[in-house]
């Protein structure tokens, strides 16, 4: 866990340094007062100092035996479910623009419930159709929410 904290703090330090550099490209002050770069510059500077301090304190803190039991990345049987969620949401985001909300969500619903352990096909079918075509109908007709039609339905 300590190693994970060091990596995360290092990433935040890199983010603050990047923001510091980017804010210096903007004007810090102009004749009217503070410019667009003023606030982000000071924030990034403070963030950099804090990240360095946190890196230092994390590095110096004694090893906690309880930390060894904490696994940062998913492990064991959970990893398949974890990956299924991430990959399928990403795939749906891509698919929605091409095949539209209804078909993308139909595939997403069926694939995710199967990946998470459901095996009753009739229930998977009902849920997938309800959660795609049904939800699309409710949100677009009743709640006036615009959802992507994609290239096929569009």
């Amino acid at each position, binding site marked *: 866990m300590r190693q994970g904290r060091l990596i995360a703090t290092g990433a935040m330090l890199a983010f603050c340094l990047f923001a510091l550099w980017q804010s210096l490209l903007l004007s810090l002050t102009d004749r009217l007062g503070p410019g667009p770069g003023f606030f982000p510059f000071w924030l*990034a500077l403070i963030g950099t100092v804090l990240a360095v301090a946190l890196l230092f304190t994390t590095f110096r803190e004694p090893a906690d035996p309880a930390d060894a039991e904490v696994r940062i990345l998913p492990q064991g049987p*959970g990893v398949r479910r974890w990956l299924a969620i991430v990959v399928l*949401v990403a795939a749906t985001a891509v698919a*929605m623009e091409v095949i539209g909300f209804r078909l993308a969500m139909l595939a997403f619903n069926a694939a995710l419930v199967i990946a998470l352990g459901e095996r009753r096909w009739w229930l998977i079918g009902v849920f997938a159709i309800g959660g795609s075509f049904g939800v699309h109908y409710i949100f677009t007709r009743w709640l006036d929410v615009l959802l992507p039609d994609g290239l096929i339905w569009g």
Partner: protein
Amino acid sequence: MDALNHLLAGFAAALSFKYLMFALVGCVLGTLIGVLPGLGPAAGTAILIPLTFSLDATGAIIMLCAIYYGAMYGGTITSVLLNVPGEAASVVTCIDGYQMALQGRAGTALAIAAIGSFVGGTLATVALVMVATPLATLALKFGPVEFFALMVAGLCLVVGLAGKNMLAALLMTVIGLLFAMIGVDPVRGAPRFTFGVEELYDGIGFVPVVMGLFGVAELLLAAEQRQARIIQANLNKWMPTKEERRASVGAIGRGTVVGFVLGLIPGVGAIVPTFMAYVIEKRVSKTPERFGKGAIEGVASAETANNAYANAAMVPLLALGIPSSPTIAVLMGAFIINGITPGPFLFQEQPTLVWTVIASFFVGNALLLILNLPLVGLWAKLLKIPFSYMCTGVLIFCIIGAYGLKQSMFDVWVMLGFGIIGYLLRKLDFPIAPAILALILGPMMEKSLRTTLEISGGSFAIFLERPVALVLLTVPVIVLGALLLRPKTFSKLRESDVD
């Protein structure tokens, strides 16, 4: 008197069929969210925002507020029946609530929680009515100097009470503020940190970030864990006995006071009032040894404080425009989406809206009591929904919510990205609440600071010349200093009193 007249007018509107239905739907959905383990009020309120897109501003806020306190109550059911808190504030309820369930008294535990929640929520709303208007009137005298100081004070309190590691909390606040800088500069209109990406000109969307950090991250965490065992409880017998009622009266009274007072302080979070109410109850009890073994006062005090806190936390939002917790920040985001800026001007510019919303708190609390006493068995059945369907259903809402606000697929990617970031941050014990509050307060903080410096000709001495600003900036220095000197005060309190 003026407030009373406004409140009566608010009741007239809140009791209209339309708003009553919005409050009812909100309470039902909120309880549902609270019942589902792993989904807290912040995630629940955020993922249900798309349901309010087509509603008028008052209706949308009424529904989202009802979702909020519905979720606060719903968490109790899983605490009692599963020993798994539906949301963080219900952790304390697990201690005695689950023991009561093991003894066959689950119905009584849930009933006293519903009654305590109703009393705590209603009394806290009465106090809100009395406190909010004078506070808003006072805040009307604030200029940008005082507002900047107020936001700094609010954020510092959140940082101070956010977790074990104050450095990490401060860093998370700065990261949140830096993310808030993405987009068009609020004073000069110049684009910043956009890198030519069109979608970034509007800034990083608050809703997809919250959905990611709370909704998706919680599902990713839950995907790793095993399902808990549900107690097959007898929920038909729920009426507390005369002795139990007598034992609960004092606990409910004390829980209300603790919840309300702590709800007024930004950053305290829902878990602290419940812990504190429980600890106080154990200390005043003549038989403290019963606590942890099914003491009804333990459930009553924690649940009352929980809902009193939820209603009191609306005071800083409505009167000052300062969100005191991530869920309140989501509600603030909902206000902004609907073109309303919470704060002192709200009472002047939108009196009908604000008083209708306040009146709806009373209505919502009553609806929750009606829903939860007789329907507790029905809610308990929802615990049997398999994770596969719950997770997929929540993700459908997340995707619609992230996309629907701006019809932007970019926001779906933002949601997923922040979901993974949120998952890692939780695993690494980095506090997320300060980043969320900073993200929503960032643009306002920057605007206030830059206006202040334009007034003062670039001199920071203006903060020392304005007494209110000076006092507000002194408060966080004292709080952060005290916490730095005595960082283990809270953890010691918890260890000694809550097994």
